[in-house]
């Protein structure tokens, strides 16, 4: 573990571990973290991992992400582990799993879906219809979306 810890320890916050190599930026994008929020974020990319060969890690100082918030990242990082850190110690650990509903954020791929009609006040929503591998339907047009389609 000391070999892994390339960036300094965080006192309080969230470590997203076991992200498939090269996906750390996609994870931040899906979480809506741009860097302009002022939170301290450390990215580690392409480090050795026993489980994945190579992996990325994202460390977010000062913010504890909830399962609802992070489940969405299973879209880009289904293997991810979320670690909640308090006083420098991991106090909670959970795997991400696909959310039952995804609201806003993503666009429906169907160009004639009403959620893609210009200026209509409607927020896209997708319901999970199958867990493995995850499959969603658009709440408006009924079209299937795999997690990757949503990005």
């Amino acid at each position: 573990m000391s070999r892994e810890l390339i960036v300094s320890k965080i006192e309080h916050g969230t470590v997203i571990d076991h992200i498939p190599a090269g996906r750390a930026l996609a994870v931040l994008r899906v979480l809506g973290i741009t860097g302009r929020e002022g939170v301290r974020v450390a990215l580690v990319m392409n480090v050795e991992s026993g489980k994945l060969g190579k992996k990325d890690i994202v460390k977010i100082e000062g913010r504890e992400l909830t399962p609802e918030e992070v489940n969405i990242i299973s879209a880009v990082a289904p293997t991810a582990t979320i670690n909640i850190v308090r006083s420098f110690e991991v106090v909670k650990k959970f795997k991400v799993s696909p959310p039952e509903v995804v609201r806003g954020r993503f666009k429906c791929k169907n160009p004639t879906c009403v959620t893609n009609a210009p200026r209509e006040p409607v927020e896209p929503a997708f319901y999970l219809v199958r867990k493995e591998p995850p499959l969603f339907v658009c709440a408006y047009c009924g079209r299937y979306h795999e997690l990757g389609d949503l990005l």
Partner: protein
Amino acid sequence: MWRSRDVISARDFTRADLEELFETAKYMEKYAKSRLDVLRGKIMAVAFFEPSTRTRLSFEVAMKRLGGDVVGFWGAEGTSVEKGETLADTIKMLDAYSNIIVIRHRYEGAAKLAAEVAESPVVNGGDGAFNHPTQAMLDIYTMWREFGRVDGLNIGLLGDLRHARTVNSLLEALANFNVRVYLISPEYLRPRAETIDYVRSRGLKLSFHTNVEEVIGELDVMYVVRIQKERFIDPLEYEKVKGSYRVAPDMLRNAKKSLIVLHPLPRVDEIDPRVDATPHAKYFKQAALGVPLRMALIYLILS
């Protein structure tokens, strides 16, 4: 229970809902050419952003036969929609003016959005490529009237089953009954996976066929939709298969005597006019039943 309900997707209606609708429609048949003054003072707004003759007229006639009034527009020309008003804003205005809104729109999900915006009930008169729930109700009502039941029927759907908006809704509504469905189409014009998975999960018995001859003798109902030339990737393929999805007297030679042929209309050339004179042809009767069926629907929602 129909009262104050939106009619957005065929998936939202149970067998009991449909049976209640059919019983009411049968009663309404007596008044389909006269007047039943039960909705006096009620106004239906018809918002047809896309042209349609049959659906719009049958809704309007149904409302008038019930003693209500109709306002609205069809086609977007000359309306505020053409000036760029959103669907949501147009619906809000109509909602303020009326007691029930019937919408037809090019976009999938338009009726759902309208129902979210409006307080009055919204009825989907066809949105996008997959939903036309009241047509599906009418299609099954016609079967119910012809056979006195729906359970046990062998129902063939023939033609472009992927892009015909009535087919998706019909399959979804049929999932409430114990029927067997034969999907007869070129492979790439089968219904989309979204529909097939749903009806299978509801236990609907289905099989796929490319050849009508193979199943014609089994069918009680043949529901025909058009195959458009533009849907074919290869024009030669179209020339090759078009005859096999066209209903003509020789195709019906091996059919049951009691087979009924249905079509949501308008037809182009997918049913030979010579079929009209046979006892199989029920598509004009089906279209006529559109009025009492929609009278029943509006009545159940508004009374």
